[in-house]
């Protein structure tokens, strides 16, 4: 479907403009590690598609397990989000954004933030009191 800005958009498209295959993930906002929620398996598939969960893993469950938490941390690092390992609103809002289908991580290797040698994660900042 090709359009010239907003002058030629059919009414029926305007009515059906809310479709997004990932909008379902909004329902998962606030889920916590160690719990089970309907739909988390679908989110794990999303992360596997973009390289955040190894292809060696399959038959995903709806458990908020270590693999999902690890994927979330790496994703948050790559996209400069707060690294919480949780499905907070900021992260979910980012996950549902339209994007390129190419993976961010290939065979565990990435040159995005998570592949850099330095670590900018706020969760890894160490302080010493004096």
């Amino acid at each position, binding site marked *: 479907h*090709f*359009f010239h800005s*907003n002058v030629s958009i059919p009414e029926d498209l305007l009515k059906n403009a809310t479709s997004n295959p990932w909008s379902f993930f909004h329902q998962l906002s606030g889920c916590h590690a160690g719990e089970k929620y309907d739909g988390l398996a679908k989110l794990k598939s999303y992360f596997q598609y*973009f390289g955040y969960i190894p292809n060696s893993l399959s038959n995903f469950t709806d458990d908020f397990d270590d693999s999902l938490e690890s994927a979330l941390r790496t994703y948050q690092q790559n*996209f400069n989000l707060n690294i919480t390992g949780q499905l907070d609103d900021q992260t979910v809002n980012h996950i549902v*954004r339209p994007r390129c289908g190419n993976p961010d991580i*290939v*065979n565990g290797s*990435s040159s*995005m933030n998570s592949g850099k040698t330095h670590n900018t994660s706020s969760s890894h900042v160490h302080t010493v009191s004096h």
Partner: protein
Amino acid sequence: YSFFTGMPRWRKQALTYAFLPGNQLTDEVKTVFSRAFDRWSTVIPLTFTQADSINAADIGIGFYSGDHGDGEPFDGVLGTLAHSFSPPSGQFHLDGDENWVVTGDVRTSSLTTAVDLESVAVHEIGHLLGLGHSSVEESIMYPTISSRTKKVELADDDIQGIQVLYGSNPNYNGSSTTSVQEKETGSSGA
């Protein structure tokens, strides 16, 4: 910036591109791709010329819906917008179900799912030339782009990355501007 594993790149400077005949694209749509190629050829010594035959061209551009045979099916409106392959594959696939805005100001579109074609084209050409994704949000190679957003200017991060692969265009004066014109941050409502 990042590269594909092994840093694959094109070994010739004059590349050709062609469109899938079945898409029957208008000249207006083809011009968008021409403009997107120009943005990269401004900073590197590669040229891009439209060819008639997709079989003979280095880069083949096609719009597809759903499963289109490469194991990476498209998913309808929004979600995955496009994907492309590292050199020297030259395969450039776009989701034919998207609501692509070809001309005009995408930010003013009344359609919340409107996606700016040139913005996605510039990003995917980066992949076709050998760039991977970047964590720099202002860069073209950042993986996400919201609907009703136009981002077509190469950022310093993009230019530095592509010039590692191909060197600089002798006529490039070294200046770049980053322009992100965003109406909304996607259907996320963020």
